[in-house]
């Protein structure tokens, strides 16, 4: 049972434009959501997170939006840069000290 879903396997955008990466979840008990970025042959690195009590969190070019009623979150990257090309994983967790449940990831390609 896939509790965190990233339904699009890939996304290609032009440099300078906005990238929007989507994520859906099924477990309403999740209370924290995170995005991780992964380059080939490296481990994932934390990018940005959002608590379930918020609907938006912004950090530089990265903004995460949470729509709890729709059980949907999205990561916006603007402006997109070629160095943003990577696999992006959405993750969710219930409770402070528990395991993260990851989606399958989406491969973002930013064209120069």
């Amino acid at each position, binding site marked *: 049972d896939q509790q965190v879903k990233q339904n699009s396997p890939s996304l290609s955008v032009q440099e300078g434009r906005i990238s929007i990466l989507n994520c859906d979840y099924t477990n309403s008990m999740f209370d924290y959501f995170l995005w991780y970025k992964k380059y080939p*042959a490296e481990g*994932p690195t934390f990018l940005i997170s959002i608590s379930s009590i918020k609907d938006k969190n912004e950090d530089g070019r990265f903004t995460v939006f949470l729509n709890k009623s729709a059980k949907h979150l999205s990561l916006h990257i603007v402006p997109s840069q070629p160095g943003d090309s990577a696999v992006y994983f959405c*993750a969710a967790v219930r409770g*402070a*000290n528990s395991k*993260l449940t*990851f*989606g399958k990831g989406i491969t973002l390609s930013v064209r120069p």
Partner: protein
Amino acid sequence: GAGVSQSPSNKVTEKGKDVELRCDPISGHTALYWYRQSLGQGLEFLIYFQGNSAPDKSGLPSDRFSAERTGGSVSTLTIQRTQQEDSAVYLCASSSHRESFGTGELFFGEGSRLTVL
């Protein structure tokens, strides 16, 4: 080192052999996780250690898989009688104890790529 260290970085083995993968978490981190990523798949949770609590083994795919964490630090993931479907990148991550999830950071190692022939 400053980060999560995993060894070996690459392991090729024959079907039926046992393998051990090692993870050295960041010093002081009480939580340690094992995930794996098979080709074209996401990050699949395997097992989670938190301090002195009983580990969460709910993600281990079969009884051929086991893991231990000695002294609250180094962890070893053991796969017995390996099968071709065990081929994947095995990722270890650690984090500090959290009162709330805060930034929610897990710090991942670079992974151990296992190929079962």
